[in-house]
């Protein structure tokens, strides 16, 4: 079981990822934008980050860069994107130790990727704080 943070401005996507993660027995956290995500990561120190690239205020890769710069997380991250400039994103993600998953994605494949990424981690400490993902109540942005 791991603590996984999902950063996505589309609440429906956040909700479906959380559903799958919870079904696989993981603890989920969610944030709508980069700033909230950073705060949450500082507070909860999750094991894995799943983030969209297009986010308000700060994009997902900038968030990851800040996480790496501040040493908040060292585990691999999963980057979701619907943008057409995937090659550029993949290059940036690769340099930040992240795997890119293009949208639309298969939740099943995403879960496999997440499991794989969790197994490659050095085994962070078990999460001591759990923030339940607000499955139905978060407002939809956009």
């Amino acid at each position, binding site marked *: 079981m791991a603590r996984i943070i999902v950063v996505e401005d*589309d609440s*429906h*996507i956040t909700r*479906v*990822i959380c*559903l*799958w993660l919870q*079904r696989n027995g993981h603890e989920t956290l969610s944030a709508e934008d980069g700033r909230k995500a950073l705060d949450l990561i500082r507070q909860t120190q999750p094991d894995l980050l799943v983030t969209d690239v*297009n*986010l*308000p*205020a700060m994009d997902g890769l900038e968030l990851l860069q800040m996480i790496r710069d501040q040493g908040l997380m060292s585990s691999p991250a999963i980057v979701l994107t*619907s*943008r*057409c*400039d995937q090659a550029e994103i993949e290059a940036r993600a690769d340099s930040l130790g992240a795997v890119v998953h293009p*949208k*639309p*994605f*298969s*939740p*099943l494949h995403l879960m496999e990727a997440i499991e794989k990424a969790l197994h490659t981690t050095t085994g962070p400490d078990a999460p001591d704080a759990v923030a339940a993902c607000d*499955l*139905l109540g978060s*407002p*939809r942005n*956009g």
Partner: protein
Amino acid sequence: MRWLRRPWSLKNFDEIPPWVGLSLGLLYLVAVVAVGGAALYVQKQELAETQLAGAARWSECLARHLACVQKTDPQSLANELRRAGREDGVAWCAIASSEGRYQLHSDPGRVGKQVEHLEVQPSTIGNVQIATDPAQPHGRILIVRLPPAASGQKPEELHVALAPPPFAWNRSGILIWAGYILPVVLALYLACYRLFRRSVRPLAAIRKRLAHCSQPTIEQLAALRLNDSFDQISSSWNQLIDFVTEMQEQLRRTRLNTDMTAAMDAFRSERLTNILMQLPFGVMVVEADGSISFANRAAAGMVGSAGESLEGRSTESLFDEALRASLLAGPGPNRGAATGAGRWIDYTFKRPHGDITLRFWSLVSEFGDQEHILFMQDISQAREAERARDSFLYHITHELRTPLTNIRAYAETLSQGVIDDPQTIRECYNIIMGETQRLNRLIEDILNVSQLEVGSARLNLSEVALDGLLRKVVQDMQGNADAKHLDLVLSLPAKTPRVRGDRDRLTVVLVNLIGNAIKYTPEGGRVEIDCTPENERLRINITDTGIGIAPEHQEKIFEKFYRVSDERVQGVPGTGLGLAIVRETVRLHGGNVFVNSTPGKGSTFSLVLPAQPLDGGPADGVARQDASTEKK
């Protein structure tokens, strides 16, 4: 001879002044008379001298005879003297004594008379003296001294008076004159006349014709020809005229051709220059020294000198050194990008009213020495269109993938049996349905834009009550406004004029404008919709307290696919199609849409539509439903 066969040809002094011929004739006549007269006079003088000499010898003989008679028979002396006095040509004879009296005289009446005073001429013929007869003006008296009859006797003189010859035409002289001299002189005259006429007449004719033809035309040259072609001068003259005529004709043709060619060249040149000047592409000719020798209007406009003449200016004032080096270098492999159409260089100029990107084609002229021809195309709009298209693709991809992602994810979730809770399963279905509708709206937008772009959009016209429509749209958008804690306020007049239009398309317009106002207004803000009738128009103002739009973007936001490259805008989902649809739809209705905005404070979008006049009074005068806020 022709002139003999046609004697009247003598009158053909037409080209020579008549007085020349007449004077010539008169001169000849005087000469003929003078020569004839002189000949006669000389002949007569010679004859008189001959007669005088004969008479002198006869007188000497007579004197000797009388001396003999006087010695032998003094009585018959008088008879001899009288007989001698009757000889032809002798007027009288007499013997004058030394006392000056006539002792004997052939005229008995004059015996003893005093001898008249005689004027003796100095010349003598032998012993004969000649004296003038005082009684006869042309008479001569020959004086011969008689030998003295006895010694101591004074010598006597024999006077013989010659009868003056009667003045009469010498017959032979007249015959000579008339028979020889006159025909010869006449013939000479005629020959001279003929020769003179033949030589002078063409010259006179030429002079007469040339008098009025200093610069003759071809027709006048033909009139200068002479008819007497048998004459050498006329023939040569006519050949000369023919030659000049031919030369003039050739000159005329050549000049005509040259004039036509020059006119055509000028026409073509002017036409081509006009075409070049009006080309939408910039054309500039740059000399080897970097000076501009030609630039059309488009070129001047592109380099920021619209309305000015660039000719004579240096390219240094227009292009920086690197660009000049690239443009004006000789043809080579590294002169910018190359395609089948040639080589080009794209260059962006910084301008106060926005950057401009020009694409240059540079050719080395085939005509000039190191002369370059620059073709310029303003590709700013093309670049902008490319940017807008890229931006559109970027956003449309994102926008299409987002609902697709949801649909796929939730469909897979349902199909994999991840959820057992019936309520959640229902919600998942609803999400799929909602995302399907979202996808559909997006496709509708794209289709709308496409229709408006190609002009195939058709309005389904009807009488639309905008107050009702506004209420409905505001009601539909209320949820979005509430989600952001915005005040959504609608103000309507007591009576709102109807608008003839397409209800569905007008709904899209209002949804887009109010939706944008909500999207770009931060939480806690306010969006007001205000409807005002103005004469035969209806104005709808949608005012928000949102992020606002910078002036440079205010016109461009109505262009298709245009989205302001601002973080606050890019973070909001959108395709850049909404306002393009709004403007095209409103224009299709005969109205227009404007924006008035202050960045950071908010924007007001004004929609003006043609409206039907209200019955019963001016629209502006109606009482407003103040604070008719419809907040649902």
